[in-house]
């Protein structure tokens, strides 16, 4: 089939403002990834088109874009999911993710996103000496299960840049940073949950979340982002330890 691309272009070196550019590709197959088609445009038609990508199978988190109005990884969306069945052509609109400054074409400045990430203590804290026998700290499969979902995050920013609260106020830490905090708050081995909860209870923390739910469908890793945010809100109110215990008794499904 034919693919008609409409791509948001902007190179501050040469353009006064962003504009739309159209490209057409022939011989497009339903199983083609949007990333492959962007490569075809870049490699066959216009080498100036700029976008990030690396692993090309939905794991590295480089190529989050707004495709037909929704945040997705270009390498994880197939033409078949954008085209009507049996269609002769498909129209694909591609823009940079929203809420972060555009550097060039589909590439945005990720620094504000990573600054929010760094702000929530996104690292393991345990100040006790490790076990005297030199082996691993023990953790039961049930304790491990309650934070499994949030360990999947690849920091692609698809959730944060789909969030209207973040669009309205860039100082909001955003869903991805909260998911990262959740991963440690609910880890039985970690000792800094209360500090993280204090950070997230501040005005630019979780309470800016209005439960709009854009983040959950935007996540290419199928993390239940809104639920994780809700659990952090509950942990602020109940204390991390009680909230962990509650999640354990409910089998990890709050």
């Amino acid at each position: 089939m034919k693919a008609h691309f409409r791509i948001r272009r902007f190179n501050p070196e040469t353009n006064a403002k962003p504009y739309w550019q159209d490209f057409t590709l022939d011989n497009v197959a339903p199983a083609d990834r949007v990333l492959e088609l962007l490569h075809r445009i870049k490699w066959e038609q216009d080498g100036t088109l700029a976008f990030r990508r690396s692993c090309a199978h939905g794991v590295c988190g480089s190529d989050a874009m707004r495709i037909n109005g929704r945040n997705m990884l270009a390498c994880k969306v197939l033409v078949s999911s954008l085209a009507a069945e049996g269609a002769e052509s498909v129209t694909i609109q591609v823009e940079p993710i929203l809420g972060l400054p555009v550097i060039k074409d589909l590439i945005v400045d990720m620094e504000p996103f990573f600054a929010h990430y760094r702000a929530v203590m996104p690292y393991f804290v345990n100040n006790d000496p490790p076990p005297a026998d030199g082996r691993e700290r023990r953790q039961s499969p049930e304790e491990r299960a309650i934070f499994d979902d949030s360990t999947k995050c690849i920091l692609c920013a698809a959730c944060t840049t789909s969030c209207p609260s973040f669009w309205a106020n860039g100082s909001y830490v955003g869903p991805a940073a909260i998911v990262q905090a959740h991963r440690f708050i609910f880890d039985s081995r970690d000792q800094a949950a209360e500090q993280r909860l204090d950070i997230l209870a501040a005005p630019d923390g979780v309470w800016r979340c209005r439960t709009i739910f854009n983040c959950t469908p935007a996540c290419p890793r199928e993390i239940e982002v809104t639920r994780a945010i809700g659990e952090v809100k509950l942990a602020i109110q109940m204390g991390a330890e009680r909230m962990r215990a509650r999640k354990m008794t409910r089998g990890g499904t709050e």
Partner: protein
Amino acid sequence: MHTHEFDIVVVGAGGAGLMAALYASQNLPGGKVAVISKLYPTRSHTGTAQGGIGAALGNLEEDHWEWHAFDTVKGGDYLSDQNAVRVLAQEAISAVIELEHLGLPFDRNPDGTISQRRFGGHTNNKTRQPVRRACHAADRTGHMILQTLYQQCIKNQITFFDEYHVMDQLLSDDGRTAGVVAIQIGTGELHVFRSKAVIWATGGWGRVWSVTSNAHSLTGDGPAILWRRGLPLEDMEFFQFHPTGLYGLGVLITEGVRGEGGVLLNGRGERFMERYAPTIKDLASRDVISRAIYLELKAGRGIGGKPYVHLDVTPKTVNRYLAEAGDSRRIDAATIHQKLPDILDFCKTYAGVDPVEQPIPVAPTAHYAMGGIPTNVDAEVLAAADGTIVPGLYAAGEVACVSVHGANRLGTNSLTDLIVFGRIAGKKAAEYARSADLPPLPPDPSGPVQAELDRLRTCKGGTRPGEIRRRMQETMMDHVGVFRTAEGIQAALATLRDLKAAFRDDLTLDDRGYRFNTDVLEAWELGALLDVAEVTAASALARQESRGAHSREDFPKRDDERFLVHTFATLVDGEIQLNHSRPVDLSLGYQPQERVY
């Protein structure tokens, strides 16, 4: 041009680079350590590793580091240096425990210890049956390692230069490490990083081939840069094809699928590995299985005549084979959902297949470089086959050839390698930096990089880089892949020479700008790939034997008389020189034997 001064610069921010950075900074109090990466660190390819990290923890059954060492040597078809394998297998245990202490969320056994699974080539040395040695976190173990190490780097306030692409290695007149040159991708400006020590950790170069599990960014930058500076590359002919890439795309389908009981079936529904590896069947070494799949395809036993086979992990099939083997294990849909969630996702997304109900279409995919920048067991880069080193230069992880993987790497040993030798590189570089001074820079240190970038930014020939890349990848896949012949390799070398001439004299690019010019960066990476491809082919031509991943149809037997040695390739006056004088270290006493699984 901007100039920075550091004690230690780490190039690459995957598992090896981040581990090296952590150890370098911890071992150099008050010192300055920087990590430079062309990607944001969390985009590094370590994050795509799936099945597990190998270590003889013995959490579920008897295991010993000596067994891990022997399996590694046998898997490497006896080309592994046994002094390095000893370090790998012994230190694997403390490395995995250290990752756990850093917070890595491993899956757990009911007693709270780290869970382990079976993996190809890892055996109980008494019974010869598969042993549970692969420590895992679902099927995203590499993701967890990368995230954990990056988190710890943030905690320890390591300095990062994200999206800076290193393009040259600086050496002083007396041959010491003096720093690196990088382009800041966002602005196109050049930066000179003066440093006492440099640790290379840029990973592999699977993008030399047309079907690969590797990220687009794996373009062999590290080896190409050192090669152009006259330093040797070791054992470049050994590149692993993983047997189970998702058909058509090459996306990795972890060996963990077979570790959980999955089997390979040909077009007749036969479990063909019973014929090629009667004892451990589908859990034989990767080289053995990739060759078996090619032979099945060649004999017309692909699925429906197409060039792929089936990887079947449906509970129905798995449980039937387990019952036949008298194994009491059984799996169900929940097992697969819990242990292989990402594999389910890949198969559904890219192939429209649900592995719980249907077999997965797979074919071999270019996966891992056993060869690379030669180092000794202290991660010091070798200047020549006689073992002399380049002061201040280190390498670790896939980019390095230490050589633990020999002619073929066992699954899970890549992650072990990253942690064990990343740790050593960081420690040793810190020791060196404590006593070394900062060598003077050569005159015009960024000149050569500037000249090449200017050439790319202004070239006006007739050939697009994409065309050159496609032809390189196809010729390497056809002639320097799973099976090789002298004739085929020579044809590939001739094509590569033509492509290099076109790259030099007839290239055209569209983007003339400075800001995030990925047109120029991709072309530069293509230059690196072409160099690495040519060394690979030349090394493959000279090794007239079959060993591990290097399988010569015209020399089908292993030849220990002539080739129980490493290949050292060096660029001398524009010509590739090959040296086969460096013997394999046999210090653990594992003498070469016939290799059967």
